């Protein structure tokens, strides 16, 4: 039987059509699958593969409670509740539910918001907690959505507000630790790239899956002790109320390590409500960012310079006439009458300017503040005590202040005579406290720090290594000045301290420069002191009070605040009294 198709038969035509059609399919498939392969694979990936960013968590900030970290700044997931007015149908139910559950976080004019039918997004409540959000979700309201955001929460309220800073609504860190250590606190977002199903559930199929987990920010532990910080803030607030001052700052440093135990400023604010602050000055940390003429506190540093250079001692004498002539300027004492041959200890007790100008003169030829004397003073003030430069303390907004070099025209003898008793230079409190710490610890300068360590991902506290120190002055000179400040305090204020401890300090009353001249109706009161035993200083405290058109004094206004903090501190650290 012959099965060959007849030429021109219908079967042959059909076969030709089938083959032709198949050929078209083959060509088309070749074009789609081979030539256009990359294009269609890309299209497929666009719909099948999802790239999800896994947000990292911002690091927490801890203070210490003794040696235990306690959280000062944490993260909380909160929700913004929004409505699509076009979809919403149960207005009354929505309004009642939002008001009942969100309470004060709900917007006032909910009905007006829902009536805006030309809008697809109206915020009904903000900062709603997860629990509240779950309750609203359970009501199954149509047209209502939730947007999750992470916000900082502050369990201790306004404690150490200026040291912490805050993160604003745009997520930008502002002020304090938040700003200064933003890179360490900010983590790295993770990435999840995967084929997903219609519900966006990641599936393991596919070759291009990426699962890079997020790296959270560092959890930073401050050297701030929350109990000390709380008491310092309370003592400062009480002091301001007592004196009528409107501004106050205080810092406490561990002189044996440079660690800052407390740093307070008033007026203050609650970082959780930073947007309600009327005066942005409340955000500034005056301890590090407000240079001022420190006044008589600096006499301790001048005395340390003179003793370290061997030109004076506490018992050395000079002739006090209550005034001293430097070039064309006459410098007088604030307290008059202690005239005659007196010791430098006596000059420190009575805070006599002439005594410390005399020290400056003796650093030179003994009669005038020569260039050599000015070079020595500058070397000690700037290079050894680190005044007039950034200390590197880890909070934002630190300013350098100014110590004029003797190499400049302004660095003349008059300038340096003023600097000898604390005028003619601008410094910050943290600079002065760090410099004075070197006098109370045997001559070692520690860079002030507000960091104590970190809390790792397992929750373990890892303390920083003790920082290294540089030699500011000899131990002998430091001990002599420490003793002098102890005597100075006890000359007038021996009864205010708890007995059995070794407390010393120096008052300071600084004039304020307004419009280029010293103001006659405004002074800043400061007190700079230490406490501990005869052998070891446990803390250095510096207090400053001020106010517009207020004449505040170191002894009358700042010293009682120091005493309050010091006496409390002695109990807090359970230091055994002598005898």
């Amino acid at each position, binding site marked *: 039987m012959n099965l060959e198709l007849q030429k021109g038969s219908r079967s042959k035509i059909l076969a030709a059509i089938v083959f032709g059609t198949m050929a078209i399919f083959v060509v088309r498939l070749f074009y789609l699958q081979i030539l256009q392969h990359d294009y269609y694979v890309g299209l497929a990936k666009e719909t099948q593969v999802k790239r999800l960013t896994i947000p990292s968590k911002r690091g927490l900030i801890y203070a210490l409670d003794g040696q235990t970290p306690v959280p000062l700044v*944490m993260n*909380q997931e909160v929700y913004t509740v929004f409505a699509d007015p076009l979809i919403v149908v149960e207005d009354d139910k929505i309004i009642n539910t939002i008001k009942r559950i969100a309470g004060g976080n709900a917007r006032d004019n909910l009905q007006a918001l829902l009536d805006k039918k030309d809008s697809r997004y109206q915020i009904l409540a903000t900062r709603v907690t997860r*629990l509240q959000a779950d309750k609203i979700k359970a009501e199954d309201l149509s047209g209502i959505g939730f947007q999750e955001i992470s916000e900082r929460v502050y369990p*201790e309220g306004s404690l150490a507000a200026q040291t912490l800073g805050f993160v604003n609504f745009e997520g930008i860190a502002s002020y304090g630790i938040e700003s200064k250590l933003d890179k360490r606190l900010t983590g790295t977002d993770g990435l999840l790239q995967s084929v997903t199903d219609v519900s966006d559930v*990641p*599936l393991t*199929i596919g070759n291009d899956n990426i699962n890079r987990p997020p790296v959270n920010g560092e959890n930073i532990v401050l050297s701030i002790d929350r*109990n000390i910080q709380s008491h310092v803030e309370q003592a400062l607030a009480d002091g301001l109320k007592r004196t009528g001052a409107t501004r106050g700052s205080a810092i406490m440093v561990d002189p044996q390590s440079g660690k800052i135990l407390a740093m307070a400023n008033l007026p203050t604010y609650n970082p959780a409500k930073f947007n309600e602050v009327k005066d942005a000055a409340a955000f500034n940390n005056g301890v590090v960012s407000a240079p001022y003429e420190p006044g008589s506190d600096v006499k301790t540093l001048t005395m340390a310079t003179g003793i370290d250079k061997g030109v004076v001692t506490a018992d050395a004498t000079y002739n006090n006439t209550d005034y001293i002539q430097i070039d064309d300027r006459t410098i007088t004492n604030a307290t008059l009458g202690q005239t005659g041959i007196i010791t430098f200890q006596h000059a420190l007790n009575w805070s006599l300017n002439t005594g410390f100008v005399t020290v400056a003169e003796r650093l030179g030829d003994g009669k005038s503040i020569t260039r050599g004397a000015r070079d020595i003073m500058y070397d000690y003030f700037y290079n050894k005590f680190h005044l007039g430069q950034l200390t590197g303390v880890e909070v934002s907004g630190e300013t350098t202040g100014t110590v004029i070099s003797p190499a400049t025209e302004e660095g003349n003898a008059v300038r340096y005579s003023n600097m000898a008793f604390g005028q003619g230079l601008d410094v910050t409190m943290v600079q002065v406290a760090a410099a004075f710490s070197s006098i109370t610890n045997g001559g070692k300068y520690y860079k002030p720090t507000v960091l104590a360590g970190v809390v790792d991902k397992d929750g373990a506290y890892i303390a920083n290594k003790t920082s290294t120190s540089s030699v500011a002055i000899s131990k002998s000179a430091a001990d002599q000045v420490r003793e002098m400040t102890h005597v100075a305090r006890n000359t007038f204020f021996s009864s205010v301290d708890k007995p059995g401890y070794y407390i010393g300090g120096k008052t300071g009353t600084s004039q304020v420069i307004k419009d280029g001249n010293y103001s006659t109706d405004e002074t800043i009161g400061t007190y700079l002191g230490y406490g501990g035993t005869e052998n070891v200083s446990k803390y250095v405290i510096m207090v400053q009070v001020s106010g517009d058109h207020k004449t505040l004094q170191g002894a009358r206004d700042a010293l009682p605040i120091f005493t309050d903090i010091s006496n409390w501190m002695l109990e807090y650290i359970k*230091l055994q009294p002598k005898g």
Partner: protein
Amino acid sequence: MYYQRTQNFSSRRQQNWSRNQNTVAFVSAIKLGPVTHTVLVALMITVLGLIYLTQATRATSYDYETQKIDSQIAELNTQKSDLQIENARLTALQAVKNSSVASTMVAPTSTNYVAQ
């Protein structure tokens, strides 16, 4: 009684004889046609496809399990975080100072020191 041969043997020695070559070739009496071959191949492909689908589905079902567990972990972490915040608030200095326990505390009358 006799035996009927069910298979045919044919010697190839007669045709191409050489050393160490089988001299007997097996030829099945059952002949499979092209349709049968096609059906068998299709069945094999179907079975292999089913096996592949079973395995792929099983792997995907693990994805859903993983997703469920991940969601549980995230939920528990959120709850843990909320509890940590609540704990921090309850143990904050101001909360402790205002607590009923603190209000009944009195200052010590004397202090003993262990060492200086």
